[in-house]
């Protein structure tokens, strides 16, 4: 989550004070990502240092100091909004590691391990759903932020379902659960990464 760019987005609407920025940030993100005042002022100082935001002598002092976006800040915001986050490298996911390791620990039942994680994820999803329930869909920012979290958790549950089905199928067919170590195969880079490399 780039607090820096979220601040730029809020400043693009007009000059704002630090406390005002924190309140608006939380409202826009459905209060899903709480932010402390210290983070806001540190971010504003860095934006000023980098020439992306500014405050003049007439803009007050301390909490009453107003900040505004610069032309460079506007350009940086536009660039960031269009830039896809780098999702091309698989993250070293702790849950995936645990399931892979459980497959080979003689005392561990991988299905029990999978179910423990599935239940935890579903319980977490129930809590997020309660937020939607209470809100009744009237707060669009909140609904979008909660949906994003639900889809993310749901994708992990689906992976657990698929992993369990695959492990069962492998066990039923008598296939070994571990393969002999091989020389690492490098996955092909997605197209946009290849292009980025070519341009360098």
């Amino acid at each position, binding site marked *: 989550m780039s607090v820096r760019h979220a601040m730029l987005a809020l400043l693009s609407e007009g000059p704002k004070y630090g406390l005002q920025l924190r309140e608006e940030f939380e409202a826009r993100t459905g209060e899903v990502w709480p932010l402390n005042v210290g983070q806001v002022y540190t971010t504003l100082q860095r934006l000023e240092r980098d020439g992306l935001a500014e405050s003049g002598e007439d803009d007050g002092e301390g909490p009453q100091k107003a900040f505004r976006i610069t032309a460079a800040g506007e350009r940086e915001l536009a660039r960031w909004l269009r830039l896809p986050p780098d999702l091309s490298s698989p993250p070293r996911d702790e849950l995936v590691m645990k399931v892979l390791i459980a497959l080979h620990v003689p005392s561990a039942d991988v299905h029990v391990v999978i*179910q423990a994680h599935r239940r935890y*994820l*579903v*319980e977490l999803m*129930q809590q*997020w759903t309660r*937020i939607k329930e*209470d809100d009744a869909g009237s707060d669009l920012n909140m609904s979008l932020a909660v949906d994003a979290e639900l889809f993310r958790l749901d994708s992990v549950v689906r992976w657990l*379902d698929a992993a369990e089905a695959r492990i069962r199928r492998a066990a039923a067919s008598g296939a070994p659960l571990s393969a002999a170590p091989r020389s690492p195969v490098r996955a092909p880079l997605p197209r946009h990464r290849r292009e980025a490399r070519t341009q360098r």
Partner: protein
Amino acid sequence: MNMLELRQVSKSYGQGSAGVQALREVSLTAGEGTMIAVMGPSGSGKSTLLTIAGTLEMPTSGEVLIAGRSIARTSRAGRALLRRRLIGYVFQDFNLLPGLTAAENVSLPLELDGMAGRKARAAALTALDWLGLAGRAAHYPDQMSGGERQRVAIARAMVGDRRLLLADEPSGALDSVNAEAVMRLMHDACKNAGMTAVIVTHDAQLACWADRVVFLRDGQVTDQTAPAPGPESLLTPDRDQ
């Protein structure tokens, strides 16, 4: 009172090596006003559980109680009466009669149960209104969207004095926004209209609308979620000032 109770219910089809054990000693209770989701992969026994809970099939062993009444000690006619008056079903493919309007589809089970046409229609319009479909009462199923058709099916499942809603993948044929709307309606039916619902689904996002999620695997309940805490724990700000 528990609206639905399954005690050590088992169900098998066929015998010997050709036999299939669809359910193994499943115990489940659903109190009034609660919504329960049953999750599990294909072949885990979800649909069998629902047909037994709906008295469409009898268990091989164990006991089923609906509104405190043992199904095994209820006659065939008594079970049919329970199905007509107390239990509503919602299916993935809506199962609406294409030649009847929304209001006629909803009032049909009441009329088949002997209620006068005018009274049945009034009850159907009330149910449709509750589901936000008052303006669609005279429309035929093919004049409505998938989401609207499923809402008509829910109205039909709730109409009259029905108290137990049994749904098999109720949003399987809908996009995510309509699927959520359907789950929200069933959730409201439990919280505001006192219905009890058991919903079978493989979709975690939909199951999460339930008060409790029960996990079924190879015909057995393997696990269930703890009562969900409120959302406060997710939103508690971690502020230093």
